[in-house]
């Protein structure tokens, strides 16, 4: 088995899971936009790079693209009063067209030199992903350790508590979803570079896959503190990737993988829900299940 590849893919997906932790777990916002933002990240990056734009600038713009999608979902919920799930579904549907419009077709192959293939050595790719992953995790840890981050977490668990502090919870929902979707777009952009193409279907099924990764991570590292919650993202993403590769190694056909992921998620959700035998969970964050 390609263990280096598993860790590399794990790092890419850990950014997705980290974004999900922000929206699903800490903000209590089951945001379905994320499947679309993952594709958006790759789509913007691929089209910009193929038009000769600097790879770093392309990454930055694809992150902003994800942020805009998060802003739209948050605005639909906060200002138009649309239900959280429905806000995400509306943006997700709109993103499908937006992503096709961005790319101009359903897929783009990335043949140009970009950040991940600047030097054509496996260690280089791993090293760059590691640096990006560590930097992002430190930034998010810093963000959540600030007063703003604490208010954001309070919004997810008890919105009226924040209102009673005379603060506007909408502010935290908006910023939280922008950051969450930006992280997921970055993950999509790195994924497109890693596999060498951007496809309109890149995000299909990612929500359930990454939710499985998140729940696996939370079952391995009980997220009773903020640090443990953040670490659970990387552990979950790598464990998920390991299971995924093992399933393929054991002869499971790629077309059957989604069923396997679904069964895995159901099993972990049941384990999480009933595993405490009536006791309250010590995990932090909102219960969105």
């Amino acid at each position: 088995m390609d263990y280096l590849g598993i860790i590399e893919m794990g790092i890419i997906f850990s950014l997705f899971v980290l974004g999900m932790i922000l929206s699903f777990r800490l903000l209590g916002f089951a945001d379905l936009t994320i499947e679309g933002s993952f594709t958006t990240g790759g789509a913007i990056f691929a089209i910009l790079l193929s038009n000769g734009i600097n790879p770093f600038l392309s990454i930055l713009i694809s992150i902003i693209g994800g942020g805009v999608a998060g802003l739209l979902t948050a605005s639909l919920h906060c200002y138009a009063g649309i239900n959280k799930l429905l806000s995400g579904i509306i943006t997700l549907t709109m993103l499908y067209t937006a992503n096709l419009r961005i790319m101009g077709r359903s897929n783009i192959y990335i043949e140009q030199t970009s950040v991940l293939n600047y030097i054509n050595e496996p260690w280089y790719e791993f090293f760059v992903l590691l640096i990006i992953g560590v930097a992002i995790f430190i930034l998010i840890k810093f963000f959540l350790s600030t007063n703003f981050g604490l208010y954001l977490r309070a919004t997810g668990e008890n919105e009226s508590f924040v209102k009673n502090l005379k603060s506007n919870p909408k502010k935290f929902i908006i910023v939280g979803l922008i950051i969450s979707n930006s992280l997921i777009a970055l993950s999509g952009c790195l994924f497109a570079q890693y596999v060498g193409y951007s496809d309109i279907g890149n995000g299909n099924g990612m929500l359930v896959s990454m939710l499985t990764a998140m729940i696996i991570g939370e079952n391995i590292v009980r997220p009773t503190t903020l640090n443990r919650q953040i670490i659970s993202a990387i552990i979950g993403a790598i464990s998920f990737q390991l299971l995924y590769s093992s399933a393929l190694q054991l002869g499971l056909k790629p077309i059957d993988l989604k069923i396997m992921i679904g069964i895995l998620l159901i099993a972990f959700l049941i384990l999480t829900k009933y595993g405490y035998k009536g006791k309250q969970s010590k995990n932090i964050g909102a219960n969105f299940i």
Partner: protein
Amino acid sequence: MLELKNIHISFNKNTDNKIDALDNVNLEFHEHQWSYIIGGNGSGKSTLLKIINKELIPDKGELKFNSYKPTDVMFIDQTTIKNLVPSMTIYENLIFALKNIGMNPNFRLFQNKNYKEIVIDKLKEFNIGLEKRINEQVKFLSGGEQQIIVASRIMLSNPRILLMDEFTSSLDQKWAPFILEKLKKFITVNNIMVIAVTHDYSQIQNIGDRLIMLKNGKVFADKKKENFDFTTQSILNLFYEYE
């Protein structure tokens, strides 16, 4: 002074079930005064608090803050856990109260030595050892301990107007007087205006300065400590008149 002038609010407007929750209510509240609001279910007690907290806007009438600001108001819900963030620690729950020293949504780190000392000092005042447990999640505390965290939050916030909706309803006779007496001392020293809804009349005699009884959204009685005996029996007699 906080003034409510000719306040009227109704629910289920334009239906057969229209309810006048408050009807022509005129009240003045003063600093340093602990006012208790009592009345039967649906008499408008909680609605009154929500109007002062600006959660509800009256259909008619005026709410005048005068020298106060709407941000001076702190509202305490009757369900203890609603006043807390359950999976956050005691420390994390309490530092939200330190807005006056920078605990606003900004990019300072919340693990701050200064904040920690203030929180620990406040918990020590209750003398039940909670200061040694500041990293415990509040959802694992007993009802009484949770209410002490809420009381500590009130004291650290030091609001100018405090609204409490059945603050001690979930507490037994051991905890309720203990917490109320601590709060009473703090509120007297700091000149805080308290407007509290309660069904527990036994606490009014020791704590209250004023008693307002609502009936069907109207002020049925407004008694001050100087001219009314605040014993449970007198209050019950008032209730019989009400019936």
